[in-house]
């Protein structure tokens, strides 16, 4: 997880949570098989949603998006298989479906953790190169105007 300080929860977040809960509840009531299937397949993402306390939940978002990309085919299979709980359990019984979805979710988590480090390395390298150029320019100026130039830092 990122070490960035967790921002205090924005006001109104509670209301959105209630709306999401209401949507989830409606979904469970209306299409319980699909809800079951998605609940299992997106379980890492839902867990990330609970664990990620960062504003905007960027890790959970990445995990959900990656996991969601591999839920499309199982949901399509459930849709064409009658949308029953048994069918959902049948789809879930295919470990290939769960493994793929959870692996994608893991890849999403991994990217969310790794990419900030990569970007930081790139930024640090760029600034170091710029600082080196500036120091060279400063040394040249000080040499050219020594001893009247202000002392270097």
């Amino acid at each position, binding site marked *: 997880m*990122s070490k*960035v300080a967790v921002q205090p929860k924005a006001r109104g977040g509670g209301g959105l949570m209630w709306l999401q809960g209401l949507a989830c509840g409606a979904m469970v009531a209306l299409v319980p098989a699909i809800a079951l299937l998605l609940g299992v397949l997106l379980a890492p993402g839902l867990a990330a949603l609970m664990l990620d306390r960062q504003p905007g939940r*960027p*890790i959970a*978002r*990445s*995990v*959900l*998006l*990656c996991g*969601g*990309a*591999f839920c*499309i*085919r199982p949901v*399509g299979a459930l849709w064409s298989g009658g949308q029953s709980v048994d069918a959902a359990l049948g789809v879930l019984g295919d470990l290939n479906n769960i493994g793929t979805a959870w692996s*994608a979710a893991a890849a*999403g988590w991994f*990217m*969310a953790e*790794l*990419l*900030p*480090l*990569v*970007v*930081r390395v*790139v*930024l*640090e390298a760029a*600034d170091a190169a*710029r*600082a080196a150029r*500036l*120091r060279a*320019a*400063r040394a040249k*100026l*000080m*040499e*050219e*105007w*020594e001893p*009247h*130039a*202000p002392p*270097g*830092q």
Partner: protein
Amino acid sequence: MAMPPGSAPPAEIVAGLFVVDTSNPLPLAGGGVPAFAATDRRTGRADKMALLVATHAPARPRHLQVPLNPIEGMLTPLAHGKGPVIGGETGYFVICNRPPGPPVSATLRPWPESALFDQVLRPIAQALVVLRAQSLTHRAIRAENVFQGQAGQPVVLGSAWAAPPAMHQPAVYEPPYSAMCLPTGRGDGSIGDDVYALGVLLITLALGRVPMAGQDNAAVIRRKLELGSYPALVGDDRLPPGIADLAGGMLAEDPDHRPSLKILLDLVAARGRKVATRPPQRAQRPLQIGQTAVWNVRMLAYAISAEPEPGLQMLFGATLMPWLRRGVGAASLAARIEEMLRARADKAGTGETFVDTMLAMQIVAMIDPLAPLCWDGVTLWPDGIGPVFALAHARDPATLAKLEVLIVSEAIAIWASMREERDDPASLRLAARTYRGWLQTRGPSGGLPRVLYMLNPMLPCGSALAAGRGVVTLSDVPAALEAAAPAADRAAEPLDPHTVAFMGARSDRRLTMDINALNVGDPETRLISQLRLLGELQIRFDPRPLPGLAGWFAVQTGPLIARWKNRDRRAQVAARLTSLAAAGQLAPMLALLEDPAALAADSEAADLAAAKLARIEGELAAIDSGGPTRAVVATRTGQEIAAGIGLAALATALILTALG
């Protein structure tokens, strides 16, 4: 003997015209100063002589700075200037004609009265008339300085220009009030002093011997003051009647009582002229002041001035007033002295250290209005203060200290106020104030050296760098410094305070501003002013290269070069300065060092560079302190990229599903 242009004249040539042969001295010809044979280069005539001016006894500026037409019966100065080296020092010479024969003192014999009138009195009086017309005096009339070519010819007055007035006169030829002064402090005096000396000369030649010979100067002065000059000189000797009558008047103590030159030139009037002068009342018993037995008030004034300590004790004692009242019948004088003593008692405790000295000076002037200024044992006429100052500055610190107090106290003005009927007190007051102003001027161009050179327009510069190099005018300064440069301390400024004071005294208005700038404490400004001054002198007087002096300046110009802020520019200026110094031209060096446009451009570029540097520093500081910000940005960006990849995967999956 044509010289190539730009080259210096040979050292043995004075004023570019007269060749001096120092191997051929002319004893007895110089009137007290060393004389050497000289030749006029234009005519080839070898009938000239060169008189060597002593270093600390300057020549007479009023006679030399304005060219004089040749005066018949007198060895008129023809030229003056630096000449050959004598005794390791560059000599300064005054050129005049060689005397036509030996001095009359060489074969002293009694002269007949007619010869005295025709061959001595008339020619000398005629020469003095010409001098007086130009407000000049001779002040060196004595048997050793009067020459005669052949018997029967008119005598010729010798030189009196190469030394301070009357400096070499024995006391016998001088009025007692001149003789009692320091030899250098007798001043130009008046033509009456020449008449006095001429009177003594007539007596000497009439007697065939120098009167009062064998007596020291103090004894001569005391005798003259005691008896009067004429009785003291003649005593029981018998003079031709015409000479006796005339000399009696010529030797009057009061110059106003001496016959005029017009009377001396009228032989009939001169022969019949007899002046009765009343000697001062003589006391029945003397008053002893120090070594002097005082018989009259004139001797009293002399004793106080010659021996100030016992003189002051006598003034404050109880014996003087009775002696004055009863001994010499000077009751009113005694009352005035008592008044002054009371005034002095009121001043006691004011903290002035010279109260008693001032009191003695005033009392002497009151007792004898003919007496010169006496100041703590230093006796002089105010117009002779310059040469006294010169000699004291070189050799007599005690006298110099007294002269300093004399100037600070403006004693000359007070002395003049005591004898208003005899001097022009306004001009002396002005002079006293001016001297004090010079003395109190701060910085290297003021103080004692400034007074020294202002009072002595022909005194050579006494700086250690210029000493012995005959630096008498501004034009001599650059060459002297060039000669001194190889052995000089390169860390010291080329113009030391003595030289600055000398230049300040000799400068014109154009140079005054730069000389005043030498008073500032900023060494850079001082160095620029010195360079400008010497460059101006080089352009004005002698454009020959001065590589030694220029190199000296080049060594000193580090702080001036440092004013350029750009390192490359500094290196360029230093290199250019080195090449200019090698060429020995000071003005281009000044132009290089004092280039306002270049300095302003350099300063502007330095400001731009400083701004750029500040910007760089700011950016570096931002980079150094930007770690947390970069971390936040990196986290956000990385997470957004991850989310973007997830979204792309989701979109791809949807599209693929939609496409079947």
